[in-house]
Each structure stands twice: as structure tokens, then as C-alpha cells.
């Protein structure tokens, strides 16, 4: 745009001054300039007004520099930042705005500087772009308050930090606003909520069940007003099983210690409760079993005394029976009362008789059978009695004798196990030799404890004993147990 005042000599100097003054004061909005085709109208205000409004309202300081780096224009934000009125900024040198100024990188990039003002200076970033105004070189500069930026970044960072805590927390954390509605919820909280929690009241998003807990309105009021810690509650989420939680609530305070809401945490204690229950059952069961064992030991002792001819005989017999009982309990402990294969049980119970010199004297054979825990003690005791008897009077009492234990499983409604103990090449055995407590014990444990039957046949070539008992649980654990091939 050419200078309108020089397009034609003015009639009087005062008129030229008046024109310039009117333009400067913004009293005109169009100029007449002489173009190649004669006079033309150039609009002043309409074209730049939107940009002027934008620049005046922008949150960054903005200014224009002339060729001598003096300020031609500054917006109100720059005046606010520098504590200098706009009128006083016009004509000042750009460098005088700053404590120190290194504009390296500012040209079409950003540089940092410290803007002078009444509050000890403000860190700012400076951006400069070169332009031409009416053919004259000038610079456009924006100045951004970094304290604001830093504050925004700190707020964003704090928010990210809070979100991260909420997302990573293994507890359900719920933040309630001053209106009692949920503003934040951790991932765990969202999982146990019955609806999307944000914006809802606590009682709407979380279903607390239990007759001792307050109704919804009172619960919401309680959470908003009353700090408490570790109240045990049960929560229901749809068709899932109820879970147990510890509910805690406390006020959320701002920097002036005023309550602006509350924080509720829910700690899932379902697993802990289940463990406590399991522990309680185990202790009760242990108590029950110890009493049973003591009763069994007491009965064995009494019966052994009655049938032993001498104290040494009592000692040997009683110790053997208690040892058999101990082996049976070892098995139960090792298998955590989950049962054991019949083959493995026999190998454990009969191990004292698989001596190096008697390797091939006891043969075991039969299909895989998983014995339930309740059969372990009675069957172990019966087998111990049979083996003890064989070693005293039967096939295991002479070098050429042997024992063959084989078994079968029959399924006919219930599952029945037949265990056959057959002695061979032993001395002829009279029923009287084996008619003491040993026989009684076998009949009692098989009949009473296993719910089965026992047949004892004192044949001339050795004792044959057939034990039949039902299994309430059975299994064919090929991998774990395998068929017996021990000999």
C-alpha cells in the first residue's frame, strides 16, 4: 500500500496532519490510493479487524517489531505480562523487556527468556517470525508465559499420576465429588460395579448386600460425611457369587483443608475369608482325626495286651501295629488326603518285607485303582496283620515261601475291589495260630471300616485271604499309579 499522504500534495499542511491523525486514531476505515488505473478504494479496518480481535484476546503476548527492533504494536496480554501499559510499550526496544535475552532458536522456532515485570520476572518462551509490512522488514513476536504452561503440565502430570494409581491399584478406589457422585473409579472398582460408576451415586453403582448394612440413602450419606475404616461388607455383582470386602471411607481435602468429596476404598478379602474358613475346617477335622487315632491306638493297645503271651511279645506286636498306623498316616499326609493307588499303598505297607534277600517273595499284580483316603488306614492295618502273620508263622517265615497279592475291580452299580492274599510254600498253618487279635482286627477293619467282607482259608499250602470292599470313589490313574508289576 502506498502512502496515501504522498499520493498528491495536500492543499495545506494542517490537512495532511489531520489526515494522518485521523488514520492513526482509527477514525477512517478506507483510503483512496492512486493505482495504475486511477484512484482505488482500500479498506483499512474490515480486513484486519478479526485478526486484531484475535490478537487482543489471545493468551500469549504478541508484538510487532520495526527494523530497529523497536515495538510498533503490543497486545494487552503482553502489557499484563510485563506490567507495562500498551501505550508505554510502543516505541520501546524489544531487548528492554527482558532480563537477559538469547534469541538463538527463536527465529521460526522457540527460545526461552525471562520477561521483566513487577513480580521478579516471568519465564517465557519467545517465537519470532520475519515479515514485510508495506515493503518494510518487520518481525512478529509471540511471548508465552511458561509459568502457566508449567502449571498446566504439573496439573496434567498430577492427573496422569492419579489415574495411574487408580489403574494400577489392586484395590477398588472410588472418588466421590461434593455432590456425592462418583468422579473417579479404579479399574478394579469398575469391575465390581453393577453399572458404569462415573456420575452415579455409590449405592447406584455398587450393590452392598447384608441385613446389617444401611439402606442406600443412608449409605451414600455415611460415605459422604463419616470417615470409617475396615467395615466388612458383601458385594453382589450380577449373577456372580457375592464377594467380601473391607469398606473404608475418608474425606477428600483440597489445599485449604476443605472437604471437596470423599475417597472410598474396597479391599477384596474373599480369598482371605475362604482361607480362614478352610483353616477353621482343617483344625476341626484335625482335632477329630487325632481323637480317632488315639482311640484306635488305645483299642490296639488293649487288644494286644489281651492276646500277647508276654511283655516282649506285646512290645513287638504293638510297635508293629502303631508303625503300620504311622505308615498309613504318612501316605495320607503325603497325598494330602486325596487318596492313593492300591499298588503304591501295598508297596509302602509291605516295604519292611521286601528285604534284599526276599526280593521276589512278594508279588503284586492288578489294575490301577485309586483308593479314597478313608480306606487307607483300615487297609494298611489289615495288610500289616497279614504280613506280620506270614513272617511269624506263614510263607515269609521260611526261605522258600512266597506271597502273591493280586486284585481286581468289578463294577456293578458300585465299584467293588477284591484283594487276594495268597501264601505259597510256607509251613502248614493252623487257624488257631492266627486266631488272635490279628484275625479280629482284619475282620473288624474290613467289615466295619471298609464296609466289606473277608474270607480266611488256612489251606495246606498256605493262607488264602480274600478281602472284598466297595469304593465310594475310584480312579484309573495310569500315569500316576500304573498297574502293579512289582515282584
Amino acid at each position, binding site marked *: 500500500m502506498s502512502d496515501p499522504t504522498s499520493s498528491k500534495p*495536500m492543499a495545506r499542511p494542517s490537512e495532511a496532519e*489531520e*489526515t494522518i491523525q*485521523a488514520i492513526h486514531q482509527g*477514525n*477512517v476505515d478506507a483510503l483512496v490510493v492512486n493505482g495504475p488505473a486511477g*484512484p482505488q478504494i482500500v479498506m483499512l479496518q474490515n480486513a484486519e479487524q478479526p485478526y486484531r480481535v484475535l490478537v487482543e484476546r489471545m493468551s500469549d503476548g504478541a508484538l510487532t517489531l520495526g527494523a530497529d527492533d523497536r515495538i510498533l504494536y503490543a497486545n494487552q496480554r503482553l502489557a499484563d505480562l510485563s506490567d507495562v501499559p500498551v501505550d508505554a510499550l510502543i516505541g520501546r526496544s524489544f531487548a528492554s523487556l527482558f532480563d537477559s535475552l538469547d534469541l538463538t532458536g527463536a527465529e521460526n522456532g522457540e527460545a526461552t527468556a525471562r520477561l521483566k515485570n513487577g513480580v521478579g520476572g516471568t519465564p517465557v518462551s519467545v517465537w519470532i517470525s520475519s515479515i514485510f509490512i508495506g515493503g518494510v522488514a518487520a518481525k512478529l513476536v509471540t511471548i508465552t508465559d511458561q509459568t502457566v504452561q508449567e502449571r498446566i503440565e504439573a496439573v496434567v502430570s498430577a492427573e496422569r499420576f492419579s489415574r495411574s494409581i487408580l489403574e494400577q491399584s489392586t484395590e477398588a478406589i472410588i472418588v466421590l465429588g461434593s455432590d456425592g457422585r462418583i468422579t473417579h473409579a479404579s479399574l478394579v472398582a469398575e469391575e465390581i460395579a453393577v453399572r458404569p460408576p462415573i456420575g452415579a451415586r455409590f449405592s447406584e453403582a455398587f450393590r452392598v448386600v447384608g441385613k446389617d448394612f444401611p439402606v442406600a440413602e443412608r449409605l451414600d450419606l455415611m460415605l459422604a460425611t463419616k470417615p470409617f475404616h475396615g467395615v466388612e461388607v458383601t458385594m453382589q455383582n450380577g449373577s456372580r457369587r457375592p464377594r467380601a470386602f473391607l469398606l473404608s471411607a475418608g474425606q477428600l481435602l483440597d489445599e485449604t483443608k476443605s472437604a471437596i468429596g470423599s475417597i472410598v476404598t474396597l479391599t477384596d478379602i474373599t480369598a482371605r475369608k475362604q482361607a480362614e474358613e478352610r483353616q477353621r475346617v482343617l483344625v476341626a477335622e484335625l482335632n477329630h482325626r487325632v481323637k480317632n487315632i488315639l482311640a484306635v491306638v488305645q483299642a490296639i493297645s488293649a487288644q494286644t495286651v489281651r492276646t500277647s503271651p508276654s511283655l516282649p511279645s506285646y512290645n513287638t506286636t504293638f510297635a508293629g501295629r502303631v508303625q503300620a498306623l504311622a505308615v498309613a498316616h504318612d501316605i495320607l499326609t503325603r497325598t494330602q488326603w486325596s487318596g492313593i493307588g492300591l499298588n503304591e499303598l501295598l508297596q509302602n505297607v509291605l516295604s519292611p518285607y521286601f528285604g534284599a534277600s526276599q526280593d521276589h517273595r512278594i508279588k503284586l499284580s492288578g489294575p490301577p485303582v485309586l483308593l479314597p483316603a478313608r480306606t487307607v488306614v483300615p487297609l494298611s492295618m489289615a495288610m500289616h496283620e497279614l504280613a506280620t502273620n506270614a513272617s511269624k508263622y506263614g510263607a515269609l517265615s521260611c526261605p522258600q515261601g512266597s506271597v502273591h497279592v493280586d486284585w481286581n475291580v468289578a463294577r456293578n452299580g458300585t465299584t467293588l475291589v477284591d484283594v487276594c492274599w495268597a501264601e505259597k510254600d510256607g509251613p502248614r498253618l493252623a487257624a488257631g495260630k492266627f486266631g488272635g487279635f490279628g484275625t479280629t482286627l482284619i475282620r473288624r477293619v474290613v467289615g466295619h471300616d471298609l464296609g466289606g467282607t473277608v474270607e480266611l482259608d488256612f489251606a495246606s499250602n498256605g493262607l488264602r485271604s480274600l478281602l472284598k470292599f466297595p469304593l465310594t470313589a475310584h480312579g484309573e490313574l495310569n500315569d500316576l499309579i500304573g498297574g502293579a508289576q512289582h515282584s
Partner: protein
Amino acid sequence: MSEQDGYNLRLYIAGQTPKSIAAIANLNRLCEKHLAGRYNIEVIDLMKDPALAQRDQIVAIPTLIRQLPEPLKRIIGDLSNAEKVLVGLDIRPT
């Protein structure tokens, strides 16, 4: 109205710009108040014919020219400052 005691005014505007519209309104109001029955206003829109600017050496718009009574006087701007307009045009209030 005789030409000797009347005011012959010529207002140069540029279409419907805010200052042009304001200048027309301000001028009409001033004239009605102080020159009732003694004035004639000619509004010239330079958007329609920019060449007319040459007649009175117009460089800024709006501009008011007092043709009569002589000497020729000019006021640049939207004429919102009534006192400045009255002084500038040497108008003697009735």
C-alpha cells in the same frame, strides 16, 4: 434557502463501512440540530466511482467537505465528535 446563508456539504463515503454509516448518521443529526433548513448534503459513494475522489483531493474516508459558505473546509472521520465538527466547519448555531 439562498446560497449565501446556506451550507452546502459533500460527504465522501465508501459503501457500507462502519465509519461511513456513522458519518452519515452523525452529519444528519448535527445539521438537523444546528442548521435546520439551511443545509444541503450530497453523499458521494466512492465505491461506486473512485474517480470522484480527485475532485476534492480525498485520501481518507469518510471525509466531509464544506463547499459553501467559502472557504472550503474538510473534516476527516466519522463526525462523532460534534464539537470538533461544529468548530471545524465554522458553524454558527442558530
